[in-house]
């Protein structure tokens, strides 16, 4: 209920419309109250007294009055529609804006379907309540009071019937409404559960099929379906008994009028016309009561809907502009992390623990580390997708929390791990961050991203429609569009997250070219999977166990970081490991770590041995496949065994 009162505040911007509707409602209801008087006059003065002219005039007056009332009714409906729809419009806009303002941490938890429900059917529910329910209740109550007054004035004895029926039926109706309320909430919940299963079966159809899990999914669905069925039956049981009861009570009321009133007419205390108008007023007093109950039932649903809506609207976005936040001036691109600690969950383990580093303007910072070691977290903190739990992140010495988010993010380009494109044309997708960009700019960005050629090869070129979630483009093509999208922003700070997965060599090479171009002269944070990228970095941050385990250039790290050396070798191994039977050379040929003999390198590159022999010689310490882990371990690590998978990995 309190949520609904809050929702009623949305009416504020439409108060004149709402007031107009209300006035019309009062008029219409007043008119309804007068109408039975015509019937009474026709019966008593006309028919009973056999006065034809009264009959005819009153019949015409009845019609004229109905016309008047209808006009007012129509005005009320039309005004109401504008009010209620206006409220729905405002609510949706607000929800939509809010969803956009909520931080990643919220969206990590939220399900698209649930948010959708809130912005669609929940809004409709509240709108319906405010429009139909709220106003009509007021109108109904007025009618009820009015007709009760008429009833008592006409015949107070007969009116006593009402004094019995009103509280009884009201009590009954309220009981129904309170019983139904939780059931309807359950229906909503179970329906959305069922829909989740359906949705997953649709979206994950490949996995379902590949693992032959149709029976399992069917079972899951059947369970959800059964639960929904059960609650619906429960509602049916209550509703199908209770609702006819409402009719029953109304019938009893009119029965009482004919019974008691009839007795009075027989005794001559009442005229027939009076009795009939009395029956009319009785119905007028009764139906509003029913409507009030229905509105009460609606309150439960609308209240739940309003609650869900406000749940979203009230979610405090910890990532929000501070009051008085200034726009970030055009930045140089100096990024500093000062003792940054970050936790996803309040009391969880830190994902970043006291991390400090500084990136000078224009530097390339490579982030290395095992999956989940916190690389993505670092880059997510820069555009303030999350807020630090402790410490601070600054750009050009300004704390990112002190500037407006929009100004911050518009100066940072991001290429995500997973490329999401939007329905629309390729041009629109590239211009995503700067919708006002000219066609030339879009083309320039696409060219730099090595995307121009394939885009041009489509029949519609830049106007080619990208289907929902970018399914018509291949993975590599999507990625290049995403790169062009970032390029078009011409950002000072660039974030590349694992951006070259799932493409073939050739495409990847193109992408690498594009990325290089993209990074030029910008402060770039690259979550790198390839040593080649790392080698070009000005700084390498090696993350381990939520901390920076090592930091420096490639050279420095090779000299002093074991973890780095390990990653380095595994990478190198990876790159040049060959399959054929060559014995692993147990000893490093070069002396210090990282030195790869030229011959071996060439061998690996050409697939020939260092001396023109058969390909497949290991340049250094690899192990042939299917022999399990190396016995000696790679060179350059002083014979240390490589980390085993079982070892607790950093995160």
């Amino acid at each position: 209920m309190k949520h609904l009162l809050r929702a009623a505040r949305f009416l504020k911007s439409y108060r004149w419309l709402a007031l107009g509707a209300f006035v019309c409602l009062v008029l219409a209801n007043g008119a309804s109250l007068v109408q039975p008087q015509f019937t009474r006059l026709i019966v008593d003065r006309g028919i009973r007294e056999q006065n034809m002219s009264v009959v005819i005039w009153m019949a015409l007056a009845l019609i004229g009055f109905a016309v008047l009332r209808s006009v007012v009714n129509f005005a009320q409906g039309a005004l109401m529609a504008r009010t209620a729809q206006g409220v729905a419009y405002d609510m949706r806009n607000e929800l939509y804006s809010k969803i956009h303002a909520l931080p990643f941490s919220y969206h990590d938890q939220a399900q698209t379907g649930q948010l959708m429900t809130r912005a669609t059917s929940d809004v409709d529910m509240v709108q319906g309540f405010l429009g139909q329910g709220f106003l009509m209740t007021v109108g109904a109550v007025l009618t009820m009071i009015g007709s009760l007054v008429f009833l008592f004035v006409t015949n107070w004895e007969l009116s006593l019937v009402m004094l019995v029926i009103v509280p009884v039926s009201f009590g009954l109706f309220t009981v129904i409404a309170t019983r139904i309320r939780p059931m309807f909430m359950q229906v909503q919940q179970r329906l959305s559960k069922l829909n989740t299963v359906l949705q997953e079966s649709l979206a994950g159809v490949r996995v379902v099929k590949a693992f032959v899990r149709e029976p399992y999914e069917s079972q899951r669905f059947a369970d959800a379906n059964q639960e929904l069925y059960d609650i619906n039956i429960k509602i049916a049981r209550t509703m199908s008994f209770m609702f006819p009861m409402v009719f029953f009570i109304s019938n009893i009321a009119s029965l009482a009028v004919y019974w008691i009133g009839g007795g009075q007419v027989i005794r001559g205390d009442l005229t027939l016309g009076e009795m009939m108008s009395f029956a009319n007023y009785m119905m007028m007093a009764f139906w509003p009561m029913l409507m009030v109950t229905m509105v009460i039932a609606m309150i439960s649903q609308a209240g739940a809907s309003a609650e869900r809506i406000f749940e979203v609207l009230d979610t405090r976005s910890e990532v929000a502009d501070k009051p008085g936040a200034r726009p970030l001036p055009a930045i140089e691109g100096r990024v500093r992390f000062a003792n940054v600690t970050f936790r996803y969950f309040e009391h969880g383990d830190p994902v970043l623990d006291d991390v400090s580093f500084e990136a000078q303007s224009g530097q390339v910072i490579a982030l290395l580390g095992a999956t989940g070691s916190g690389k993505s977290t670092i880059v997510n903190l820069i555009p303030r997708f999350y807020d630090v739990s402790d410490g601070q992140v600054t750009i050009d010495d300004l704390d990112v929390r002190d500037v407006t988010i929009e100004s911050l993010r518009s100066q940072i380009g991001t290429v995500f791990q997973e490329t999401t494109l939007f329905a629309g044309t390729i041009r629109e997708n590239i211009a995503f961050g700067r919708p006002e960009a000219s066609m030339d700019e879009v083309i320039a960005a696409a060219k730099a991203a090595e995307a121009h050629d394939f885009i041009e090869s489509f029949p519609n070129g830049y106007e080619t429609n990208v289907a929902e979630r970018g399914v018509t483009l291949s993975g590599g093509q999507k990625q290049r569009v995403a790169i062009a999208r970032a390029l078009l922003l011409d950002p000072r700070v660039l974030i590349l997250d694992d951006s070259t997965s799932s493409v073939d060599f050739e495409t990847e090479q193109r992408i690498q070219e594009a990325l290089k171009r993209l990074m030029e002269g910008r402060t770039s944070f690259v979550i790198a999977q390839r040593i080649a990228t790392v080698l070009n970095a000005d700084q390498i941050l090696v993350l381990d166990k939520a901390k920076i385990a090592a930091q420096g250039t490639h050279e420095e790290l090779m000299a002093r970081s074991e973890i780095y050396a390990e990653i380095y070798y595994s990478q190198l191994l990876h790159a040049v490991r060959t399959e054929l039977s060559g014995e692993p050379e147990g000893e490093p040929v070069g002396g210090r770590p990282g030195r790869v003999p030229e011959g071996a390198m060439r061998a690996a590159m050409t697939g020939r041995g260092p001396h023109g022999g058969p390909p497949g010689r290991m340049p250094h310490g690899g192990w042939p496949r299917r022999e399990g882990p190396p016995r000696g371990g790679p060179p350059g690590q002083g014979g240390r065994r490589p980390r085993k998978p079982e070892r607790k990995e950093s995160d």
Partner: protein
Amino acid sequence: MFGRHGRGLAREKEKAKDSFGTLLRLLTYFKPFTGLVVIVLVLLVCNAAFEVAAPYLIEIAVDQFIVPSGVEGPRWLSSIVSEGSSLASGLSRVMTILLGIYVLRWFSMAGQGYLMNVMGQKVLFKMRTEILDRIHSLSLNFFDEREAGDLMSRLVNDTQVINQVFTMGIVRLLSVSLNLIGIVVTMVSRKWDLALASFAILPVMILTTTVFARRARKAFRRTRETIGEVSSELEENISGVREVQAFARERQNVAEFRQINRANRDANVQAQTLTSAFSPTLDVLSNTALAIVLGYGGWSVVRGWATVGMVVGYMAYVQRFYRPIQMLSSLWTMFQSALAGAERIFELLDTEVVVSDALDAQELAPAQGRIVFDHVDFHYKPEEPVLRDVSLVAEPGQTVALVGPTGAGKTSIVSLLMRFYDVVEGSISVDGQDIRGVTQASLREQMGIVLQDTFLFSGSVMDNIRYGRLDATDDEVIEAARLANAHDFVTRLPEGYNTDIGERGHNLSQGQRQLISIARAILADPRILILDEATSSVDTRTELLIQRALDELLHGRTSFVIAHRLSTIRNADQVLFIDQGEVVERGTHATLMEAGGKYHDLYMSQFRREGQEEHEAVAAGVDPRNDGSKPSA
């Protein structure tokens, strides 16, 4: 997004193409409940009888007791009201009967409502099950052509409308119609001229209703179209909210949304305004009818053609007659949209299953894993061949690497092997058995796949890994996770293996999701393994560890590997270079390098990048960047 209109539900059609056929088919769902249907019908008829009886009794009460008209009462009356008893006691007798009728009416209404609800829910239950089964049995072609979101909203909305019709629509429609018939019959049979006067306004009413209904349908169609646009806009931007925020596009999006939202608001206002005009108009008409009855009835009474009670009774009839007519028209609209929804659902249920088990399909015996592609052609659309004349033999235990540019057809090859699609020409066999001759379940059960796009289900990490083998114990799941190198990060999640992973695993990194999907495949322990870019999103160090696990896994299994990392390919027993749907080179890494063809070129280009810079750097002993010229494109 981008203010595109006409998407989403826009193509929804209002009316069923074949209303009658759809209705018949919908009715067949009620066949198992024939007995109940009969009971409901009987109750409906009783209800209609009660509906008619009440005004009649009131009329009797008025004419015989309240304002005695002197007209002789019906014969049955004398059996309950003895001659000479007082008017008041006669009135009480009639009223008692009326009370009884009201009680009966309550129960008959409750009974029919309950039974109809139960049947409706049962039918819906069955229908939903059928929908899901059909979705599972459809081949991937179907899903390639449709947006999951669109399909989803259609299914949800359509079943919802049908639900409404089943739970209240049908009963109301039938009871209202029956009541109307009952009333008309009674009115005409009792006094035809008064009945005629009562119905005088009916043609006008029907005409008005029809005109309004037509316009309202149009208006409401527009509201549905616009809400469809609102929904797809929401859907897309909620799932793409990360991009939106990263590109600080919120303002633009909000502006675009406002526009779509406004269109929806305006459509709704228009539709509701129309509705607001409708019921007052009907109100005028029914009041006119009332006035006519009163006028003509009054005149008849004056002339002595009718009794006062009769006029009172006809007034009650008229009210009971015109009110349901309004209801009837809205029920009719609802009914029609339900039929349209049902038709769409039937359309889905009738979608031909392209890939289905042959009638005599056998279980595929535990496979050795010898796989043969024999001159396989494949296309989705005839004009765009995807695979042409692909032949290959994979001996048991071999690893076959598929290499080639994006879009060459690599994924199609493995999809055909899984029989997600059927070949157009040629055949695929496992251990000499054509895969079209075995059941899909037995075929896929022996295959494990790790896909490029990791899909995780809502549920715990444990559930998601167990998806690979449902009867696996917790220990086995954990063991698989260990092998896939997922154990460590999983144990660090807030609730370890019981952590709920959100939709699409958003609170996990893509690498972590991939590890889970690898664990899933490991747990499934398949004979034939397909890795489609399985390790593309994990860092090299993790990949190396997974690779070791995979090496272990690959051992003794026939495997098809699509990967862009060299090592995997180099280790393969066979390398097939696919280009534009054809196998252009085949051999081992060594022989292909020797041959110096496309594979060689590709390999070199990749290698140069991964190795050379480093090689140079290391050889020079300096960071290549330090020479001042940053390598650029």
